[in-house]
């Protein structure tokens, strides 16, 4: 375990991370994951993170060494897409029982690996360590090493038991395992000056394929994607790429940085989320490739593609502007997305009432200020209760967030769109941003909301019952009483004109302005101006105006 502790320590001290760089030496050693609060924690464990990061490897058997909870409760829950093998969607677990806990689970693990190789013959097996075997001291490194030798096949230990930390740490531990055991172990069939790696892209809902055609058009080859639609051989030979793009910087920055150190592959942090970002990323890819020796003309071609795609995307978003006029968006997400989608939403005419910055870096926050102005409403931490209130009181018309806060919005009968990992639509690249705008429109313009927000009939009835008991109800039932009340209520104190007289004049002549009332009655319309306006607004003839 001491080596795992060392790895964790090493990961926390990430020189490539801007946030980490700005900390004091002592703080840096403490690591970047906040200490979890028992009883108010949310989010996955390190094992969860490792699994999420690696499961998109499509041709690998993912074997979870642990009791049934770790795999049985969680399998087949990711929306990554594969262009080939579906082996990644098959769940394998040693399902440890009490006897294994007492006598150790190594033997069972060994047998499980043998069974998988005999039945499936996968490109590789990833063995995930979990809390219990870590506690009882199962040495999965040794088992995997022995199995690799015996079967002549990569059997890779992923040392990321849940209790060592958060999901984010697990992402990075998975990255360490790739660096140690996978990357650089095979050679590609051929290389080109246009080979790149995408690191931290998981191909959710197949969204990588929204961008890939553009890269194909430019002649840029994705040598490997870590790990969306990942193939073991591609990642094993990814050290031959000329440049890399770090897509989700929070999850795998250690992989990008170490590949730069070890293999001299330059990388940049970018995103295909948002129009501006997609363009920036394409330009950066071209720039890095040219710096590494690709022909200069790539830059020009890239600019041409960007110009064409941007024009198309903005044109597609244009028609939504009038529809979105005055509509307010609350954006609850993390990191890059806290600003990368803002530009597109603003361009479509939506007003941003707030964006969360919980997982954002200093640079992220600067970008937000650039886009939304100095007094941008940046939300550090928002409780579900507060979100619910904001939506319920219509401070926002729609919320974009991750699945966790979904019901907060829906239960307030407010439109909501999933823009995090469980989303079922692909929002990447130029096409994706148009798709997002389309989805927002579909949701906002749905006639269902209006019906849903209407109270149930019995609530209306109950209200009516309360009204019946009010003094006004008495008047409504008794015309004579109503008449006297009307006559008794003075509106213009100066000339002593009562409510009845004014109301009658309004009804008789269809009056709609204070001026007109003054002409037809004795009312002065000076100090009683407001009161007459009130009567006008409430009277039937004024209804058309009120409706507007």
């Amino acid at each position, binding site marked *: 375990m001491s080596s795992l502790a060392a790895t964790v320590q090493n990961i926390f001290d990430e020189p490539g991370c801007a946030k980490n760089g700005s900390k004091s030496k002592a703080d840096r050693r403490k690591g970047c994951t906040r200490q979890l609060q*028992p009883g108010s924690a949310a989010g996955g464990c390190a094992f969860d993170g490792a699994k999420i990061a690696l499961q998109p490897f499509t041709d690998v058997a993912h074997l979870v060494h642990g009791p049934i909870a770790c795999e049985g409760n969680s399998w*087949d829950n990711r929306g990554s897409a594969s262009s080939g093998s579906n082996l990644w969607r098959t769940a394998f677990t040693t399902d440890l029982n009490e006897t294994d806990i007492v006598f150790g689970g190594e033997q069972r693990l060994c047998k499980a690996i043998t069974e998988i190789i005999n039945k499936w013959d996968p490109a590789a097996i990833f063995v995930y360590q979990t809390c219990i075997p870590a506690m009882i001291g199962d040495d999965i490194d040794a088992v995997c090493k022995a199995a690799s030798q015996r079967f002549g096949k990569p059997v890779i230990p992923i040392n990321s038991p849940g209790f060592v930390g958060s999901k984010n740490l697990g992402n990075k531990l998975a990255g360490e395992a790739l660096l140690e055991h996978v990357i650089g172990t095979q050679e590609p069939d051929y290389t080109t000056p246009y080979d790149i790696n995408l690191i931290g892209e998981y191909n959710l809902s197949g969204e990588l394929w929204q961008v890939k055609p553009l890269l194909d058009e430019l002649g840029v080859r994705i040598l490997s994607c870590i790990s969306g639609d990942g193939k073991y051989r591609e990642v094993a030979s990814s050290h031959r790429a000329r440049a890399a793009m770090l897509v989700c910087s929070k999850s795998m920055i250690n992989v990008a940085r170490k590949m730069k150190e070890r293999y001299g592959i330059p990388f940049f942090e970018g995103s295909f989320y948002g129009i501006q970002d997609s363009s920036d990323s394409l330009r950066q890819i071209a720039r890095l490739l040219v710096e590494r020796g690709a022909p200069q003309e790539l830059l020009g071609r890239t600019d041409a593609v960007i110009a064409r795609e941007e024009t198309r995307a903005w044109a597609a978003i244009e028609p939504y502007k009038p529809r979105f006029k005055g509509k307010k968006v609350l954006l609850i997400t993390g990191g890059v997305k806290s600003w990368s989608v803002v530009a597109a939403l603003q361009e479509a005419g939506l007003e941003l009432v707030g964006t969360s910055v919980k997982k954002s870096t200093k640079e992220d926050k600067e970008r937000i200020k650039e886009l939304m102005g100095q007094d941008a409403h940046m939300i550090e931490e928002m409780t579900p209760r507060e979100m619910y209130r904001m939506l319920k009181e219509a401070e926002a018309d729609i919320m974009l967030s991750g699945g966790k806060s979904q019901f907060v919005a829906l239960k307030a009968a407010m439109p909501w769109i999933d823009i995090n990992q469980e989303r079922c639509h692909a929002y990447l690249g130029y096409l994706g941003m148009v798709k997002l705008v389309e989805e927002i429109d579909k949701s906002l313009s749905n006639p269902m909301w209006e019906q849903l927000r209407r109270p149930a009939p019995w609530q209306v009835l109950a209200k009516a019952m309360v009204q019946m008991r009010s003094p006004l109800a008495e008047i409504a039932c008794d015309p004579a009483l109503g008449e006297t009340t009307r006559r008794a209520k003075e509106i213009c104190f100066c000339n002593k004109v009562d409510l009845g007289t004014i109301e009658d004049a309004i009804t008789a002549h269809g009056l709609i302005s204070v001026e007109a009332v003054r002409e037809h009655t004795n009312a002065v319309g000076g100090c009683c101006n407001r009161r007459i306006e009130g009567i006008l607004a409430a009277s039937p003839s004024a209804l058309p105006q009120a409706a507007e």
Partner: protein
Amino acid sequence: MALVKASTKSCAVNPLKMSQPIGGAFAFMGLRGAMPLLHGSQGCTSFGLTLFVRHFKEAVPLQTTAMSEVATVLGGYENLEQAILNIHSRAKPKIVGICSTGVTETNGDDVDAYLKLIRDKHPQLAKLPLVYVSTPDFKGAFQDGWEKAVARIVEALVEGPGVSGLRDPSKVNVLPGCHLTPGDLDELRAILEDFGLRPSFLPDLAGSLDGHIPGEFTPTTIGGIGIDEIASMGRAQWTIAIGAQMRRAAEVLQAKAGVPFRLFERLCGLDPNDEFITFLSEISGRPVPVKYRRQRGQLTDAMLDAHFHIGGRRVAIAAEPDLLFDLSSMLHDMGAQVTAAVTTTQSVVIKRVKAEEVLIGDLEDLEELAGTKQCDLLVTHSHGRQAAARLKIPFYRAGFPMFDRLGAGHQLSVGYRGTRDMIFDIANLVIADREENHQPTPDSWRVPAALPRRAGHSSPGTAERSIA
């Protein structure tokens, strides 16, 4: 009598089973103002939470003691204490249900003792019920967790019938197994009320996970049976337990408060509902309402119409013991052959499943059996979707989790009406499958040796297993 076998594999592939702690936590979700708490690392909770949310499409309260590696070495007292205090001050629950996990069981946390210490130290918790269930991940399955949790709730919260010993003749306790949906509970409630009975459901998922929209946001469960109502269950005239898993809780209730119980192992099908309705008529002293006489007629007619389609089907079914017993018996009653049956854990009912053999195994086993035994109807939870696609046979989703279809919380299996609708659903699947995949061609009836008669029967389970 079915032969019960356990899988001999070392590697479970495509698990059918889920873990005990989340089964236990699920039971607490049927209590009003409850916060279930898993004593383990935060992943134990987050996986469970995701699973429930995907199934119900509802916000689900579930907390964690967030055990770290260091805490695991030092013992979990402090984490448990902090978690309870945090939950108490933030979520203001009426009850906290605590389930242990593999981590804290392996490390040997004595939670009962911890709770005593915590109570001594924090008098502000005096009125907050803290119910603890031991549910290690490495033993049993989801259903076992539920069974233990309900028994513990009864033990901890039900009070005796009072000094007078008087019982309320119309008050009936219902202890539903975890295989019943919120929709099932509502159906049962309506039936009991139609007999003039006043049921208390423990747990009552229909109050919390039926999908209603609460007036305001609450971090705990938004409905379910209240603590006071649970306490009053000792004054009931009868307890109705549904599913063999509920025998334990019913026995505890009987021992504690002297309430007699009647166990209904099944509530899907004609026979079991006849028995059930007769029982209700007896204990309520009322004749069977016309509504149910009509519903019985409708069910018998549905059986007549559907037997053409369900009769003779070779069913491959995988579910937790009580659901397996219930559904497979109903299908058997309709003339289907239960050809492959797989379950998760030991239970008294599985040897009575109307099949030659019941395997305690996983969905790989089910897929293999369904392939080799040429099954043409698959019944299991949503994780069976990959197997169904490979087998190319109609797939009826039943049980937990059901994450790839809507309305999981309202799928009915109980009562005459519930059975009727389920029979229609299954028969319709078979009809649709026939129209889409098995239209006769000029070659349909040629010598079978040369041409496989039905495409669905080309076995993907054996030699050339396709994983793609």
